[in-house]
């Protein structure tokens, strides 16, 4: 029975699912966190902190966007 299982493919699925499935929601959460904190800092007159949080939000959103593009490219390039 075990011989019928493609452990190599299964391992790839588990690893990719863990990395992308945990990583992408975390990135998006960091973007939401960054936007909220940047807004608070701006209203409190803390311009440096606002810039730092904005940079965090932008970076997280960029990586999130890149991961979506990567997902679509995976669809286009299956084994």
């Amino acid at each position, binding site marked *: 029975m075990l*011989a*019928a299982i*493609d452990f190599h*493919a299964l391992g790839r699925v588990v690893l990719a*699912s863990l990395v992308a499935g*945990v990583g992408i929601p975390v990135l*998006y*959460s960091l973007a939401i*966190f960054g936007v909220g904190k940047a807004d608070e800092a701006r209203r409190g007159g803390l311009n440096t902190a606002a810039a730092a949080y904005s940079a965090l939000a932008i970076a997280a959103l960029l990586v999130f966007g890149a991961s979506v593009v990567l997902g679509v490219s995976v669809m286009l390039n299956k084994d």
Partner: protein
Amino acid sequence: MDDVVLWIVVGTALAFDFTNGFHDTANAVATSISTRAMPPRLAVGLAASLNFVGAFLSLAVAATIASGIVDANYITPSIVFAGLIGAIAWNLATWYFGLPSSSSHALIGGVVGSAFVAQGPKAVYGAGIVEKVIVPALVAPVLALIVCALAISLTYRIVGRRHPGPVTRGFRLGQLVSGSLFSLSHGTNDAQKTMGIIVLALVSNGNLSEGADVPTWVVLSAATAIALGTYVGGWRIIKTMGSRIIKMDPAQGFTAQTVGACVILSASHAGFPLSTTHVMTGGIMGAGAAKRLSAVRWGVAGNIAGAWVLTLPASAAVGGLTYAVVALFGAHQAGPMVVSILLLLLLTAAFVKRIATGRTLTAEG
């Protein structure tokens, strides 16, 4: 004359594809509708469009769905026809009870049952069933549950102390992206099943050589059928997945959809077909269980798991029974024609009865 039977098989395969889209709409839209990220009609319209596009993007799973489970040398168009009837029957039965279940496994079960009745055990590969049905059925929900539970735990740690308003709006916006990606990945995965079964029928009828490319008309018709089914929407299952397993907030909806898309895409990329239903249901349970175990209605989850266990034997039984009836009238020609006419009459009668009583098949809510 064999071509008449072949076209009956192709028509039945497309009917199955329609029920596949109709049955699996919930996987793509239930979380978006439940968290009010999108109005219901917009959600199903977007999902249908992306399923259509997704069907054109990859043919990898089409090459693997039928091979390795049944021996193509023993398969005839009548066997494929009876198998499809088994799968359609299971999809309609589970829709009626609002239970999400795997259309892939229903299809495999139907074909296995009809092949078994027609040709005996030599036509069925037991190892193929283990590899393509049992192992994926165990892996998909558990993997999605664990990944989603981890992801939502980290998400709550990051945004848990923020003002709820902007966080909710942010995740609803994110659901537009995650829902779209999930629908697209569903199209790349599920429309391939019908393509696979039509190709199997074409090969068994001698219209196509084994290993040949999937013809364009097969891709186009399968994409259209799954998109139409998705647009019609199986609202009973949407209700189960959107609100009966857990009461979902936008962060959970976004995470479940994103994890679902990631798992399906990873599996699809590796040519290791996983059921989108198993993945999405596991993801939703994980999103609820990470908040607190009692947030998941385990009774509903148990009913769903029961349906998953029954999918293969029940669809195999209907597939086998259908083949036995087909064989009574003549397996090569008259049988599929008689059975398809009888089923069409039955469906028409059921539809007319529902219309007459003022109910539609897909009433929202």
